[in-house]
């Protein structure tokens, strides 16, 4: 089971995602409400996985993803997107994102995405 860091500016979104992650048997080590906080917490806690919202004020998800990957090239980051925006997804892949989850969340999609990334990590 994994230690997961949630980065999302919406409290509602964090709460829904936390429940799904915990129901899947994982631990949420911390919740952050912007990219800057997410990057700093990643360096401090070194979680197995990060879920990162793309659309956030201040430092957005793509910028935070770049900083995290720069500090740890093995970091596993699942990007959360409210829309399948092709350009943002291409950029996120380029920067090293491991997987995508679309809002509104579906518990099965969340579980599958986490398992997929963790299996990649285990090999």
């Amino acid at each position, binding site marked *: 089971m994994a230690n997961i860091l949630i980065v999302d*500016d*919406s*409290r*509602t*979104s964090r*709460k*829904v995602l936390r429940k799904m992650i915990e129901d899947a048997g994982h631990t949420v080590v911390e919740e952050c409400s912007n990219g800057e906080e997410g990057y700093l917490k990643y360096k401090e806690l070194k979680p197995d996985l990060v879920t990162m919202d793309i*659309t*956030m*004020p201040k430092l957005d998800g793509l910028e935070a993803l770049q900083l995290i990957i720069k500090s740890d090239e093995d970091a596993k980051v699942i990007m959360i*997107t*409210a*829309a*399948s*925006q*092709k*350009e*943002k997804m291409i950029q996120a892949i380029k920067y090293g994102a491991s997987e995508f989850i*679309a*809002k*509104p969340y579906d518990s099965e999609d969340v579980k599958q995405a986490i398992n997929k990334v963790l299996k990649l990590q285990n090999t």
Partner: protein
Amino acid sequence: MVAIILGTYLQKKGLLTYDQLENLLLQQRKVHVKLGLIAVAEGLMTQEEADKINGMQAAMDKRFGDIAIEQGYLTEGEVEALLKEQGNAYLKFAQALEDQQLMTVEQLEQCMMDFQVENQMTFSDMEDIKSDDVDRILPLYIPAGQEKYLDTMGTALRTILRCVDTEIYLEKAYVASECEGENGAIQYIDGERRLTYGMIGRGQALLPVACAFGKEEFQEMNEDALDAIGELLNCISGLYANGISRGGVCVELYPPEYSTDISGITCDEMLVLPLYIKGQKIHFAVAMENKIEMKREA
């Protein structure tokens, strides 16, 4: 949706109380529509004939359709067609009214004629209402000449029906430059297509939406509850952006903004759709090529 539209009409006419309507909305989800009721609603039998067969059924182990064929009221083809109608939402509502002994299907049909005349609807419009299909119902509430809003408003309404409540009452949408409300959220979409979604209400009107979408018992419309409204807009915007991106249109979503301290929203031109969700009136707005702004309290 058809149940709340027609049920609210009956309530406004004084034919149902609010409690009876609430109960009907719960009951109609689990009701089994009887073949006799459909036959009367379709005008193939009278109420008297259906009652006679119901009486005969009590004394013999036979299905309604078989007896109706034997008695010469219906043909085999008609019974087959009626059986296909048993999942129809309008008929479920009619059956729930009859089960609760509030109104017969014949009385309901009479009320529907009044509804049609009062709302200046055609027979085809009435079929759209009875279809319970949001894509057929929404155009009836959009003003003539404003069809450009159908796509954006359709995505919003379908998402609200899926994530908040399946029974939403609509009033006719209107074009405006201002809409009053005390709290709410907006989200701006920029790029190859620009639009803004907004949702506002007075007092605690948005609370049932926030609780249903956020899956949390908020006590008042505070920032946490508004965050849930913002997140609902984010999902609507995301689904809309997803749809147009399949057609090669690229857009960027800005984070939702919300406030507990506004006097309304303003825009050069927006379409405002009044919605009643769990008995509370709220306003849903869409602006195309225009940005909706929140009017802060002075």
